[in-house]
């Protein structure tokens, strides 16, 4: 088994503000990304997936308190001083953001912004420029030499996102964080960008943590999927397993809520209830108030339990969770697995 590239272990993130209750944005999540693997973190807006990515990069504001362990290539990141973190950013870990229209500096050329990544980590000017042109070609920008000096606003959204990706991978990072890289693009361009990411993984062996809320994107790109709800990681499995045999009630509901042609005309499936207030979340499993399988045990946090084959769930209604916690008795009505 190859050494995991990214290990997140019992990560919790709280935002504090004066005179205001703390926001418990992420609660005890654990997952890994192996080299060359594409792992997707999915969930609704506000579930903490972007926060997790920012925590890995060390780009959270000072109001965020991070506890737990994050390690990349064996190196612990939590508590690392900013200067040490800066050496890793753009070097061993790259990040791509959601909106290509605001990710690029309007006052500098696209070429310069890619070269900046190389320069930031010791590359010389000419070296950086050559690399930038190389990268422009690799991500599919036509006529890279001529367009090196063009400012971002001369490019479409899809093109800009390619530039962003080029800038993020300039130094061949082992890990790439992609925070909703295609959300702001339309569907045809989306497919191109996803294909680009896949090619990068195939060519360079980059491990990718993909943050997404669109399950279609996930299905196209990911090898494994982690499902988050209200700051908690509720299920992780291979992409096939998640779609074919989801085990957590939330995952099932999420998949059921996807509009497909196969549904009859009529009402869309919804998940009843609302996302909890993260300043005062329910104890234990945060999905419990909305869960069709809720039980009194749910006020205790169910552990994320592996079934031995890499499929993990955190739900008392599943046997694997109960077994992992040492209480194999069935606790309630018909539960999954």
């Amino acid at each position: 088994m190859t050494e995991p590239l990214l290990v997140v272990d019992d990560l919790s993130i709280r935002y504090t503000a004066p005179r205001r209750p703390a926001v418990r944005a992420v609660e005890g999540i654990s997952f890994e990304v192996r080299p060359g693997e594409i792992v997707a973190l999915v969930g609704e807006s506000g579930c903490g997936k972007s926060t997790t990515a920012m925590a890995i990069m060390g780009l959270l504001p000072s109001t965020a308190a991070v506890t737990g362990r994050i390690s990349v290539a064996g190196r612990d990141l939590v508590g690392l001083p900013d200067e040490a973190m800066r050496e890793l950013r753009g070097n061993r870990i790259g990040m791509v953001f959601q909106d290509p229209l605001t990710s690029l500096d309007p006052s500098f050329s696209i070429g310069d912004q890619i070269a900046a990544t190389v320069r930031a980590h010791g590359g010389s000017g000419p070296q950086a420029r050559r690399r930038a042109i190389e990268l422009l070609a690799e991500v599919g920008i036509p006529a890279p030499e001529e367009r090196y000096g063009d400012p971002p606003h001369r490019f479409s959204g899809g093109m800009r996102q390619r530039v962003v990706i080029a800038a993020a991978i300039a130094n061949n990072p082992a890990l790439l964080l992609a925070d909703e890289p295609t959300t702001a693009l339309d569907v045809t361009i989306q497919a191109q960008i996803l294909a680009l990411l896949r090619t990068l993984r195939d060519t360079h062996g980059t491990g990718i943590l993909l943050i997404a809320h669109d399950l279609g994107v996930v299905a196209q790109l990911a090898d494994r999927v982690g499902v988050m709800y209200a700051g908690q990681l509720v299920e992780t499995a291979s992409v096939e397993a998640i779609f074919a045999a989801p085990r957590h009630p939330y995952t099932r509901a999420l998949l059921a809520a996807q509009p497909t042609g196969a549904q009859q005309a009529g009402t869309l499936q919804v998940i009843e209830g609302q996302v909890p207030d993260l300043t005062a979340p329910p104890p234990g499993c945060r999905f419990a108030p909305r869960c069709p399988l809720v039980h009194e045990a749910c006020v205790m946090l169910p552990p994320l339990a592996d079934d031995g084959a890499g499929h993990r769930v955190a739900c008392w209604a599943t046997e694997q969770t109960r077994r992992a916690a040492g209480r194999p008795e069935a606790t309630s009505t018909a539960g999954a697995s």
Partner: protein
Amino acid sequence: MSPRMWFIVRRLLMTIPILVAMSIFVFLMIRLVPGDPVTTMLGFRATPENVATIRAELGLDQPLIQQYLDWISGILRGDFGQDYISGAPLSELLAQRLPVTLELTVLAMVFAVLIGVPLGVMAAIRPGWLRRGTGVFVIGAVSIPDFWLGIMLVLLFTATLHLLPPSGYVPIAEDPIGNLRYMILPVLTLGIAEAAYILRTTRGAMEETLSAPFITFHRAKGVPHRTIVFRHALRNASLPIITVIGIQFGVLLGGAIVVESLFALPGVGRLIVTAVNQRNYLVVQGGVLLIATLFIFVNLVTDVLYVWLNPRLEGSGQG
């Protein structure tokens, strides 16, 4: 022609009606004075013959349009008419005094930028005591009337420390050191409030820029903090800062009126104030016209500069 050039051409053309409207206003100034302006202006020299002569010279009995056209064509030829009180041609008077006003205004702006921009940048990147301190400075500078500040400075540097002269002027060509000695207090007076304003603008622009997503992306690339602040944030923030400098330059022209009077500097501002007190309408007219024209051109340059420098206004690329 690119959209940007069109902006600029349109803006240039728009200046013309503004200049015309302003000149009409200035032209009407004398004619709106209740009573007979000529008599008031001449004061004790107002004999019926003098009054009649001057009225004829000024063409005050002609139809208004005619008067305006005559006056404007004279201005465009450089003939501002004559100051009946001192006897000198007005254009000469104005030409003598303009450099003083310009020196004062330009030096004050330079001072304000040299103090305001660095402090503003620092306040934006190092919050805490520096931010609060500059905040207090800004409020203080705005609340304190600049002419009173000037007087307080005189109290400190002249009456108490005996370092600098309280008033007076020497042209820079004659005696550069002496000129600077006379100009320090007026420049400080005008410049301190301006520095506060520029500081505030710089700080605001820097803060806004630093919270932009592309800055986060720079950080995600590992770009060092210093580079982010001085190369990227400052460059993007400089546009609003430059715009404000342009606008404020005009405001300084107005403030110069008071400061010149305070420090007895022979500039256009003091000329206007003295003339108003003396009811010397022609001089007022000429002075106001000059300063207003200057103001309009500074605004023009600022607007053009803004369009010129703004990378986003280049016109549509490919979608």
